[in-house]
């Protein structure tokens, strides 16, 4: 496994302003945050009839420094069950205009996280206060309602609990309207790994400008970071 600071310096050497998805996930994994099992292939020809030991269903995502929003570019395909479906998905992707014109580093094939509550965890370097950590519920809660809570790093467990309690959608975590309660311990644990005393944002305070873990899928089997972006300073 590549050391966290190595991941960042490699991206800098390659002249990149951000970590790509696998590097971002490797960074999270180095801080003990679960990410989906995954392999990277160069193209459809490398699939060779097996999913390289992954358990279906899987998702395929294009890896390119030129593509910021993979879904919008047609670079994400989910719920694929066989090697043939994966190979087809890659071939279709390569014909998408935005992808055909881009530099392609490969394709990420990863196991899909079990269904669960989508959470967003973010990070930001504030010019006056240094690293901040953010949490919100995924989807419209963050994107439309801006229902998020911020804290200045490092946070304590009490801070992390307070962040969740502060969300207007907090009742959803408790299991509103007959839904199953979300295991908040897994969210708090992830928040501490990101924003705690020895967390990712404190350790790399001078290197990370912005971070989005979106979504973090939280279910009874724990919290899995399904996508992650790190913008470097």
């Amino acid at each position, binding site marked *: 496994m590549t050391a966290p600071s190595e991941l960042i310096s490699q991206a800098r050497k390659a002249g990149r302003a*951000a970590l790509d998805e696998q590097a971002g996930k490797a960074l999270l994994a180095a801080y003990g945050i679960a990410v989906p099992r995954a392999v990277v292939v160069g193209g459809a020809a490398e699939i060779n009839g097996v999913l390289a030991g992954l358990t279906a269903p899987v998702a395929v995502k294009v890896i390119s420094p030129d593509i*910021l929003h993979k879904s919008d570019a047609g670079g994400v395909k989910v719920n694929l069950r066989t090697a043939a479906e994966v190979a087809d998905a890659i071939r279709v992707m390569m014909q998408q205009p935005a992808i055909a014109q881009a530099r392609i580093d490969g394709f990420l094939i990863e196991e899909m996280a079990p269904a669960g509550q989508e959470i*967003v965890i*973010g*990070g*930001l370097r*504030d010019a*006056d*206060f*240094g690293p*901040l950590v*953010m949490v*919100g519920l995924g989807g419209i809660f*963050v*994107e439309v309602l*801006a229902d*998020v*809570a*911020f*804290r*200045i790093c490092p*946070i304590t467990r*009490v*801070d992390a609990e*307070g962040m969740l309690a*502060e969300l207007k959608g907090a009742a959803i975590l408790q299991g509103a309207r007959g839904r199953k309660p979300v295991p908040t311990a897994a969210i708090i644990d992830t928040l501490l790994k990101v924003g705690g005393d020895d967390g990712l944002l404190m350790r790399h305070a001078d290197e990370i*400008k*912005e*971070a*989005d873990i*979106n979504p973090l899928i939280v279910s009874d089997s724990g919290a899995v970071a399904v996508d992650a*972006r790190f*913008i470097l300073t």
Partner: protein
Amino acid sequence: MSSNVIDEFMPLFAPKTVAVVGASTKGTALPNIFIRRIREFGYAGAIYPIHPTAAEIDGLTAYKSLGETPQPVDYAYIAIAAAQVAPLLAAGKGRVRFAQVISSGFGEVDEGKALQEELAAAARAGGMRLLGPNCLGIYTPRGRVTFAEIGPREVGEVGIISQSGGLGTDIIRRGLNRGLKFSGLVSVGNCADVGPTDLVEFYLADAQTKVIGMYIETAKDGRRLFETLRDARARKPVVVLKGGRTQQGQAAAASHTGSLAGDERVWLALSRQTGCVLVDTLDEFIDALLMFQTLTPHPRHPTQRVVLFGNGGGTSVLATDYFARLGLDVLPFGQSAIDALAAMKLPPGTSITNPVDCPVGTLQQDDGRVAEKILDVIYARGSPDALVMHLNLSAFVGRTKNEVLDNLVQAALRVQEHHPGKAHFVLVLRSDGEPKLEERKREFRARAVELGIPVYDEMANAGHALAALQAHERFVHARA
């Protein structure tokens, strides 16, 4: 560390020698006014006017530079053209402890940014601490030094840091009217050297200061401010009035997180993590400071249940709603309190559940002794965390003897004494702007504040101040 910060900053708050730069022989410049003000305020230390040519200013021997005064200078008040300040400081030759630069034309304008760097470098080279530039001065009753035309003469317990000089003046003047008394107020301006955090550290360590108030626009040393406040664990209440909170997150943010962050979020986070109390207006700021000056927080049972007692039915109904929105409960009494109040056979029109609505007739009965009995039952059986007594003065006019108001307050204080530490006592004196009534209210308010009672103009003001007290109490309750 705390004794160091006291040693370092005491020459600012109680200077033995003051140098004044920029006073003219004609006696009309701002520094001449400053000399007059500190003399009127009772400053008894040495005053050294600094002037390139004059031998004497305002009857005081003048000196050519900061390096030539008979004694080293604890505090220098400097109001001369921006470009002249750095050379002036350099001539101080390490004999100046604090230099406060009133002059503007520095970092607040683009063409002054380099000049401000130069100024800070000159202060560092001269071994002095720099306040400002672009500020109004310091008001420190313990040191008998003030930039303000009027202000309380007594030394108090409220320590203020203001990034706006004008607002600092407002705080002193309104404080005078409302009964606030200060341990100091420093106008910090552009904060080229001394910033808000330095003064927070001083006030935290300063035995004279009980509550800290801060008007802040930008916190360049935000990280240190956060760490200082966090480590203080709200051992003194800190009230923060933050300007510019509605500024949006970085427009150019590349992430969700970046676009959602903004000043408002950061300061809310600071308040949640450190227990400092955020307020939105100057009125709320003064109201909260008055609450912390007069009352001792109850972190063991944070304020939640409020009893309203006074004349004005609609007023108490509206206040019940308003307090609920602020997270304060005005809940009906339990049966035991209701039974005890019913047994008193109060005159008709007196409601005996919370809010307790008492017409003037009831309040003045037996020279206020009936009110005392009602309050005693409320304290004994009504489980109040705070009691707000509200008096609509218009309803008293022409119907009562002047002493009734005093009697009511004395009654409330006696009840407080019977039930020590039970509930906060807050007074709301409502009026209608009629000059004679306002005058009566002003006199009465002054007497009440002297007795350690926080007095508010309207229920909403009292509500916000109680909410500030509650926020502080809850933080200490949960974290300390």
